[in-house]
């Protein structure tokens, strides 16, 4: 089965931890249909899961009346995933975790999600929504020419 040009798949998640796995498995299914290698699909799964966790925890602050939108757009040679929440968005760029500082209690052991997202996909962009709402993170992974 092949994916037609600009096919879009949308998922709407409740703001409850654990539901990021629904978006993660859906994105993996779309990537598999597009012909991505298993290791790239694993990268995408982690990036999408982390983006959804950020949206649930920080964007929507675990408010179950709000939902997280996940829009997957499959192009000819790339897959774009937008994870949209009702938060004010991320203004700071992710810093690489400092394991020594974490091990010495000088840095929160958490806070690695944005770093992982940026490290695992080909493109990652955090966009602040107009009027302080509908902010999103946009992820892109591209098919290698040898795939």
């Amino acid at each position, binding site marked *: 089965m092949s994916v037609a040009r600009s096919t879009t798949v949308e998922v709407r998640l409740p703001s*409850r*931890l*654990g*539901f*990021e*796995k629904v978006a993660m498995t859906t994105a993996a299914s779309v990537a598999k249909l597009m012909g991505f290698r298993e*290791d790239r699909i*694993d*990268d995408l799964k*982690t990036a999408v*899961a*982390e983006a959804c*966790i950020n949206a649930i925890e920080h964007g929507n602050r675990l408010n179950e009346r709000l939902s997280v939108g996940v829009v997957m757009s499959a192009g000819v040679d790339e897959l774009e995933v937008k994870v949209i929440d009702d938060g004010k968005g991320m203004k700071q760029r992710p810093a690489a*975790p*400092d*394991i*020594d500082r*974490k*091990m*010495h*209690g000088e840095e*929160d*052991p*958490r*806070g*690695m*999600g944005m*770093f*992982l997202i940026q*490290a*695992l996909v080909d493109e990652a962009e955090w966009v602040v929504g107009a009027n302080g709402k509908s902010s999103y993170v946009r992820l892109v992974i591209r098919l290698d020419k040898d795939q």
Partner: protein
Amino acid sequence: MQTDTKSRIEQIASPAGQAVTVLRFEGDISSASKEAVVGAYQGLSKEKVKTILLDFTKVDYINSSGIALVIQLLMEAANSGQKVGAFGLSAHFQKVFTMVGITKYAKLLPDQAAALAAL
């Protein structure tokens, strides 16, 4: 909807006769796993347990909150002078653990036999 994390503690010996405590995890490792990861570790005797292996063979999903719990475990073990290794991670999570720097504090080995041989 988060899947429960199960953890089981097993005492084994390395080929050289060294006592090793294995924490075997099963399920997802996420923010909901604190008791299964850190709690299970904190139940071990700091005086008697000197070498610990973390078994991720039956873990399919680890997120950054779960990795933070592993870092907390490693931090407490380092403060207690305990040596920690890990095995059974998929190639992807070996890569992720390496990216965040965990390999500086815990060796990652493919399976239990390799982990015991590396002690």
